[in-house]
């Protein structure tokens, strides 16, 4: 009976009309209307969209008109009849304390004469209610489910999204305090630029990866090193970093690991001495471009940082980080470099060479050309405000038309679970942004760093880097973006977007701390296990933690030089 009663209550709640600010009666301003304008901001000065503003006569409280604040917080309220007497402007917005302001008689006269009155900025105070706690609990649960691998990340994000809507549409109808945000508002948090850029790049990468270019390059590195394993690892670090910057680190390691295992065996060394540095270089190398890491794609779309922005502002920091990484692994694996290579028999050498052949030379040059044009499109597109998703989608389509691969196969190459993960994640992060958790975090960090840009860079690089060791860096970066936006606006010098670059560095470099810190680490470990050479959690940690903090230091120093000292 209690179950049925609960279900019945839920159904009734769902059927009940939902009070939504978006549905508020709007008054379209006509040329002969009397217009009151203003702006809604929170206590951080950030705009408040979707707030309901209503004008009432005083003291009888008759409704004169209603309006809704836009994305930039501005609102325009139209009154169709000439105002008489005092007017009170009331503001309501879920998760904020309701506010009211009276227009003085002088102001009403001004409105009557000029047909416009500027009320100015109205600051609303945050209200921590049941919706806040629900959204916060859901967000933390999603992060925990992903971090402890209790659930697939996409399922975890979808579960979080569902819980948010249950809170809004079921509990919110029983008690309005549980309202988090309505469906239309939730959709505004989805960044479609990210979705389409990721989708376009997935198709391009799927075509390039089948050409065999990764294996061929690794084999050329083997030949070039002339059997000197210390030189080989340096070349492989460079190749992996560049490949990760241009494609993505997951695919790079997926295809570099098998051939690197074979090369390590051919040299008579522990192949992990090549592969662990490679995967760490792949996590670092991606930082230098917009498309190198998923977190950069998120940051780029949010902060309007293009391909050349990342390239020009991050590359030297990445090179410094790679230098420190190289020095560390040269020292750590020094016993391996001292081993004498027994050399390969002609038969095994031929087998290795065959395994490293270019599979499809025709497809390689065609896809290489299109990929180059996509990169050019990224750079030129910035000048004409073309979102990076456009060149990526054009490139993907051009390859599909030119190479005529199996379209079904290519569509399968698009990882829809990842795209759904992004969509659900955007809404979950949007929920904690809506209820004010992100503002609280921003306040906390702001209180910690004050107006010091140096301290802010330090806290973001090392704080996010340390959190990324254990927490999945994509949700972390997504939830930090509004915080960074606030800090960038409030700290002197922050408008250079340096804090976004700090976020990029921290999120990606932290992935080297633990084996579970990045997807590339996991796939690499999976492949080495297939060759009887598993990478243990402890072994990775022994190398990963020092590398993480060395590379974070390099990134921090570079950002300091680039944006503060020079």
């Amino acid at each position: 009976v209690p179950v049925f009663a609960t279900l019945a209550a839920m159904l009734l709640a769902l059927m009940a009309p939902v009070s939504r600010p978006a549905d508020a009666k709007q008054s379209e301003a006509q040329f002969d209307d009397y217009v009151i304008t203003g702006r809604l901001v929170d206590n951080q000065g950030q705009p408040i969209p979707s707030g309901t503003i209503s004008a009432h006569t005083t003291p009888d409280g008759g409704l004169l008109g209603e309006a809704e604040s836009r994305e930039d917080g501005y609102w325009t309220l139209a009154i169709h009849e000439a105002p008489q007497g005092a007017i009170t402007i009331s503001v309501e917005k879920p998760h904020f304390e309701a506010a009211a302001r009276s227009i003085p008689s002088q102001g009403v006269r001004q409105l009557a004469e000029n047909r416009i009155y500027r009320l100015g900025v109205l600051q609303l105070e945050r209200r921590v209610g049941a919706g806040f706690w629900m959204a916060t609990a859901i967000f933390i649960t999603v992060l925990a489910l992903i971090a402890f691998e209790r659930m697939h990340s996409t399922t975890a994000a979808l579960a979080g999204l569902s819980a948010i809507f249950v809170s809004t549409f079921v509990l919110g109808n029983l008690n309005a305090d549980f309202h988090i945000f309505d469906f239309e508002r939730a959709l505004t948090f989805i960044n479609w630029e990210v979705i389409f850029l990721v989708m376009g790049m997935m198709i391009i990468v799927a075509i390039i990866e089948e050409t065999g270019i990764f294996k061929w390059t690794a084999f050329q590195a083997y030949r070039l090193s002339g059997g000197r394993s210390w030189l080989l690892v340096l070349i492989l670090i460079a190749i992996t970093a560049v490949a990760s910057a241009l494609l993505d680190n997951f695919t790079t390691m997926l295809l570099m690991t098998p051939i690197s295992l074979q090369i390590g065996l051919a040299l008579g060394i522990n192949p992990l001495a090549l592969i662990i540095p490679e995967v760490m270089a792949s996590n670092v190398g991606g930082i230098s471009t917009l498309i190198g890491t998923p977190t950069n794609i998120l940051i780029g779309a949010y902060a309007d940082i293009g391909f050349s922005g990342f390239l020009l502002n991050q590359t030297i920091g990445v090179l410094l980080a790679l230098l420190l990484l190289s020095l560390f692994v040269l020292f750590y694996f020094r016993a391996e470099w001292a081993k004498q290579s027994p050399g390969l028999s002609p038969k095994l050498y031929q087998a290795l060479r065959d395994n490293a052949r270019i599979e499809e030379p025709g497809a390689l040059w065609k896809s290489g050309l299109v990929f180059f044009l996509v990169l050019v499109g990224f750079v030129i597109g910035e000048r004409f405000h073309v979102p990076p998703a456009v060149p990526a989608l054009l490139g993907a389509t051009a390859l599909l038309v030119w190479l005529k691969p199996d379209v079904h196969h290519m569509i399968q190459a698009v990882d829809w679970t990842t795209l759904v993960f992004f969509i659900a994640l955007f809404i979950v992060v949007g929920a904690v942004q809506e209820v004010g958790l992100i503002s609280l975090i921003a306040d906390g960090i702001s209180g910690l760093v004050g107006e010091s840009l140096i301290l802010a860079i330090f806290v973001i690089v090392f704080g996010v880097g340390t959190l990324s060791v254990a927490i999945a860096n994509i949700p972390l970066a997504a939830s930090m973006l509004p915080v960074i936006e606030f800090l960038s606006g409030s700290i002197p010098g922050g408008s250079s977007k340096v804090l976004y670059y700090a976020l990029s560095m921290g999120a990606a470099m932290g992935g080297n701390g633990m084996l579970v810190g990045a997807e590339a680490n996991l796939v690499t470990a999976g492949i080495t296990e297939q060759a009887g050479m598993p990478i243990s959690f402890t072994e990775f940690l022994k190398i990963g933690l020092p590398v993480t903090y060395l590379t974070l230091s390099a990134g921090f120093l570079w950002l300091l030089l680039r944006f503060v000292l020079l």
Partner: protein
Amino acid sequence: MTILYATRGGEAARANQDYVIELAMQQGEELVLLYVANVRFLNRTASPTPLDLIEEELEELGAFLLAMVQERSEAQGVKTTSLIRQGSFPAALLDVIEDYSIDTVVLGSPGEESAVTSPELMNHVIRLLQAETQASVLLVREGRAAGDTPPTG
């Protein structure tokens, strides 16, 4: 008489490989080397994975690993065949035992770093082989016999 040795390679497996080559040489038996690739580890990741391509890569990796063992065994005069399979390890074992009339199956002892099997899988495999085949199972650890199970099937 034919010995089947399932291996993934790796430095830790080298001593076991030497043991199997020595065993085959002493008993004048043929040696069948088996590498079973399994892409199940990709379930741990959420990123897009070109499954066909990865299976192909792992097959090439396996072929190279087995070629290194085969070169050493043939240098000792042991007639050797290398086989690559995908998917379930027990299923691959059963197929090869039947196809090549295997008498002895040699496996790296569970718990050893490069062992193909976990203790749970090993128990399952032994029970399966006893029920379905005439082959005996020999466990090797660090280049020495770690125990064998008589054929009962």
